[in-house]
């Protein structure tokens, strides 16, 4: 499993809801490219075009609040966002991201120390984030059961192994 990530940071504030991430009008499909294409459209219509695979999101408190729509983390993951670092996450968004094998880390105070475009390095195993000034931020490691899901590459591969089943798709 990949545990080190480095990329450009996109900075967001507090209370970024799933409505901000992907609007309700785009949910009438199961095509993840549609979700990706319209990600954060309400905030900045050009955002999805400017994201490069490997970029990270750094946000404030309560990231992903609102609905249970898994299309929100799917949209960001499909665009190639490698990880999200926030002061805190809304609970369903957090579960959804982990289930997709998408690293989300609660790293208090980070957001106020980085600006858009800064290159941020995340060491998931070491529990540390490094910013351009050389400053490092420790974060509380993920609980073991959550880490297990990430290490398996998501909940689906983990369950397949556990149940001894094979994909039907």
């Amino acid at each position, binding site marked *: 499993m990949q545990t080190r990530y480095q990329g450009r940071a996109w900075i967001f504030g507090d209370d970024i809801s799933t409505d901000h991430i992907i609007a309700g*009008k785009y949910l009438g499909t199961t095509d993840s490219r549609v979700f990706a294409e319209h990600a954060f459209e309400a*905030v900045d219509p050009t955002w999805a075009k400017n994201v490069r695979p490997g970029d990270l999101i750094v946000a404030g408190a309560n990231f992903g609040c*609102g609905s249970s729509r898994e299309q929100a983390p799917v949209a960001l993951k499909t665009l190639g966002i490698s990880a999200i670092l926030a002061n805190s996450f809304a609970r369903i968004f957090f579960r959804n991201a982990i289930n997709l094998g998408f690293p989300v880390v609660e790293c208090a105070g980070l957001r106020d120390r980085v600006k858009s475009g800064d290159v941020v390095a995340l060491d998931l195993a070491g529990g540390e984030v490094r910013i351009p000034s050389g400053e490092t931020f420790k974060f509380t490691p993920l609980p073991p059961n959550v880490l297990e899901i990430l290490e398996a590459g998501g909940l689906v591969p983990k369950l397949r192994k556990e149940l001894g089943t094979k994909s039907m798709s």
Partner: protein
Amino acid sequence: MAMFIGGAAPVHPPVPMTGQTMSEKVLARASHAESVRPGQIIDGDVDLLYMHEMLALALLPFNEIGTMKVWDPEKIVVTLDHWVPPPTPEIAKMHQTIRDFCRKQGIRRFHDVGDHGIVHQLIAERGYAHPWDLVIGSDSHTNMVGAVGAFAAGIGATDTAAVMAKGQLWLRVPETMRVDIHGTLGERTGAKDVILKVIGTTGDDAARYAAVEFTGPTVDAFPMNERFVLCNMTTEMGAKVGMIAADDVTKEYLAHSGHEFEPIRSDDDATFLRTFAFDVDGMGPQVACPSNPANLKPVEDVAGTKIDVAFLGSCTNARIEDLRIAAELLRGERVAPGVRFQITPASQIIYRQALKEGLVEVFMDAGATFTSSTCGPCFGGHLGTLAGDEVCISSTNRNYPGRMGSPTAQVYLASPWTVTASAIHGEITDPRKV
């Protein structure tokens, strides 16, 4: 403990426990443990899994998990609610996929278009969820169902697929935050005003990962429709679940389902993370202003704000009692010129009841639009979305930018009283003054 309904054996025999909150009691039962502590990770046996159109998205991971069959079709309920009736060929196809899946899997409790309702309301009114149940729903407002004394939590598509395959879900046992409410509310003020006040005071993430339990004489005196409103919007506090002790009011509400249950409440010596006490004596109507459910103002501070749209709908406030309030105010009145007032009941059962009581005629005489039940307008999906810069007052639960349509639309959240009074006057109006 007093036994409900004729003293027959309870479906969920309680184990002797002390010092536990309601949510801990349910999770202990669901994980076959004597007791559980906050912070502990458990695998809970799911008593009820319910889904709406998210099922279509969950089929992708479900097929990848590869169990072929759902764990127990008798413990699953499915309805269509977000896009009813389907507004596009793609969504009609999505509904077909869901219909076929339910038939092939033997899911008998599939409520198709025509027999539909917003899923939380449908679960509640048909008596599908009971005290002591671990209920998992594919929607964030699953919290509403906790008003019957269940642990009811919302999840996303992959978790939904996992529950379909295994019948279990891992859960972190939440700390419980108690919200104790006392006092007699002012005129034309109800549970919606109370929960807006609670969210506005504590913040939109005050209960992140926590269970919220409502207690106190005001809550005890609330009928079920008002208790559902409280639990429904614990989602806007970030809560995992919202719960209310099951009492005689719950018993009466669930009587038609024929389900027998033991009462459930938190022990007197249970540990709470925090208790918020609210004195709502004489409190008046409250409004959450754009664009956060915690952006609270008393109605008099925003009265006079011009509106383009008034919407009475959603799982939060579109029950028959809410429609009766709208009819009471609309009788002999007209919706203000240039304002569209849309009323969308939370289920087909409510639709029928509104017809029977003559409410629909009152709505139409007043120039309001009455539609079939759907979540559509609340999440900006279809059947009444907002244009740029339009101002809407809504009985729904969220007002983040773009929630009900254009990102520049402005949404104010309020009670059915305030929404209807505002529709008549074309501006945000204190319902006590009409």
